[in-house]
């Protein structure tokens, strides 16, 4: 009996590792894809890779989200070729800010927050982290904070889009038996209204 429970646990662990690897690979793909897209407005990114961070948060919790985001940024920057350059600093601190705000949101508002709310918090954390590091290191002028209102509006729009996409993805994956065994994670509330 005990050994079968043990087996069940290692099965779950192995499953999580395999799916985390898959999620990281997908996130790196989206990260690179987005860097290749021509962007009409400077610094405007949808942040598609955050969809996978939200999925990891929803299935496996906070630690998985941090692991996914940080490894995605390192591997993605390595692929794009700007590792440790100014662009990397911006995306690293953006990613860290996003994870920080999403963690705070997940822990404090766990009773009612959905993936859309978490996604918006992530987008806002992303621009705050980026503007902070830009004003301290890259541009070294406080006036860069004047861009904040425009960025906030963009973050709101892209956050809603990413959140809805992540919500659809999580719902879809939950139909599969490999995920239905996952404990109920963060940001899944809309089912009960």
């Amino acid at each position, binding site marked *: 009996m005990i050994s079968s429970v043990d087996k069940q646990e290692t099965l779950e662990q192995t499953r999580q590792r395999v799916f985390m690897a898959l999620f990281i690979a997908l996130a790196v793909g989206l990260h690179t894809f987005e860097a290749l897209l021509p962007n009409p407005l400077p610094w405007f990114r949808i942040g598609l890779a955050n969809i996978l961070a939200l999925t990891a948060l929803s299935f496996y919790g906070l630690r998985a989200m941090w692991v996914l985001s940080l490894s995605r940024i390192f591997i993605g920057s390595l692929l794009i070729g700007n590792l440790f350059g100014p662009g990397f600093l911006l995306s690293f601190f953006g990613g860290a800010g996003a994870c920080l705000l999403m963690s705070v949101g997940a822990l404090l508002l766990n*009773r*009612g*927050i959905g993936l859309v709310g978490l996604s918006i918090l992530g987008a806002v954390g992303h621009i705050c982290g980026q503007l902070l590091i830009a004003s301290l290191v890259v*541009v070294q002028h406080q006036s*860069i904070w*004047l861009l904040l209102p425009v960025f*906030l*509006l963009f973050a709101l729009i892209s956050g809603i889009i990413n959140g*809805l996409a992540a919500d659809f993805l999580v719902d879809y994956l939950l139909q599969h038996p490999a995920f239905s065994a996952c404990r109920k994670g963060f940001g899944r509330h809309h089912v009960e209204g």
Partner: protein
Amino acid sequence: MALSSLWVRITRTDRWIIAFIFLAAVASLWLTIGRPAGQNVVIFEGDKIVFTAPLSQQRSIVLHGPLGETQVEISAGKVRVTSSPCPRKICVSMGEIHRSGDLLACVPNLVVVRIEGEERSYDLLSR
């Protein structure tokens, strides 16, 4: 039908977050748009001030950064970067500025164009 299926995915807490961020964006937009037009154009290369001129003047300036020549134009009370050697041309696409505190930055070529009001602030003097 399709829209309402999206709407149910947004929880009540999410709606509060959306409203809060939207209000924050509108409030900060209102705060930044209300600033008066500036008086002077100040151009930095790295940390050094390399050029200052009143905004009312009509002229164009050529700056020499590490990548090459960046051209800046002052005309009709507004400033813009007309050409730059940097790869992504973000500074060119930032358009025209004229309000006090506004900023054009070309990070790769280390050129920062800033508009200042009548009095210089102390933190700029101390640089």
